[in-house]
């Protein structure tokens, strides 16, 4: 971000209120993986739960998405992609601390290349069987 003109002394409101234990603001969170400051509002979803740049999430939800009842707070890596019947992509997140899995909708501003790389991963790694299927 380009710095503002130095003579502008008025304090910026967004700077001082830090709500969460990780120091995140009420309207944004900092990605635990790539440190990007992410606004909570996201196009196409009710609430954002992963970083649009690296797709990493944080284990804060319990059984119900958005309930924020989980105390784990481990980093959740995006490990896979699945497509719903209507074609919408969902991300599979895996908590690196406790092993919990979760499914989350993608957001309209998620990095397309990161998404594509994730979806390509099984094929890039190579099928665990001979490509010559036994026909």
């Amino acid at each position: 971000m380009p710095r503002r003109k130095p003579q502008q002394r008025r304090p910026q409101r967004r700077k001082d209120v830090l709500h969460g234990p990780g120091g995140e603001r009420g309207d944004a969170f900092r990605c635990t993986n790539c440190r990007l400051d992410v606004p909570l509002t996201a196009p196409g979803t009710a609430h954002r739960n992963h970083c649009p740049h690296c797709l990493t999430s944080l284990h804060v939800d319990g059984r119900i998405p958005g309930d924020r009842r989980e105390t784990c707070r481990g980093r959740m890596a995006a490990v896979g992609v699945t497509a719903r019947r209507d074609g919408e992509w969902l991300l599979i997140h895996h908590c690196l601390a406790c092993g919990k899995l979760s499914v989350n909708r993608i957001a309209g501003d998620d990095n397309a290349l990161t998404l594509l790389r994730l979806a390509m991963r099984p094929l890039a790694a190579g099928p665990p069987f001979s490509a010559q299927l036994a026909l």
Partner: protein
Amino acid sequence: MSNDIPSSVLRTTTFQCVRCGLTVTAFAPDGRRRNHCPRCLYSQHVRDQVEGGPSECRSGMSPIAIAVLRTGDWELIHNCTRCGELTSNPICGDDNQFILMRMAVRPLAQPPFPLETFGDL
């Protein structure tokens, strides 16, 4: 499926697939315990992931995605059709390769953005 269980593997436990009814040996040919049907890849929700013990749910779990481990091995992600529980398990050597491949390519067949925007990756 072959009935010739290697003599070294004396474990003849079987389970019946909740989806397609196939009788499946609880241990794959490579000796690993399996949790899903090799024909349709469905599983059954019999373990509570949070508590660790057996689960009362017992509903079918549909295979929804493939995750890749650091080792490059494929893991199969299952989603309980009743309660939404998610599990991750290694694939087995005799798993249906067509269904596995279909799951691997399905998201790519309907991407949320035009693939033309990407040049050579």
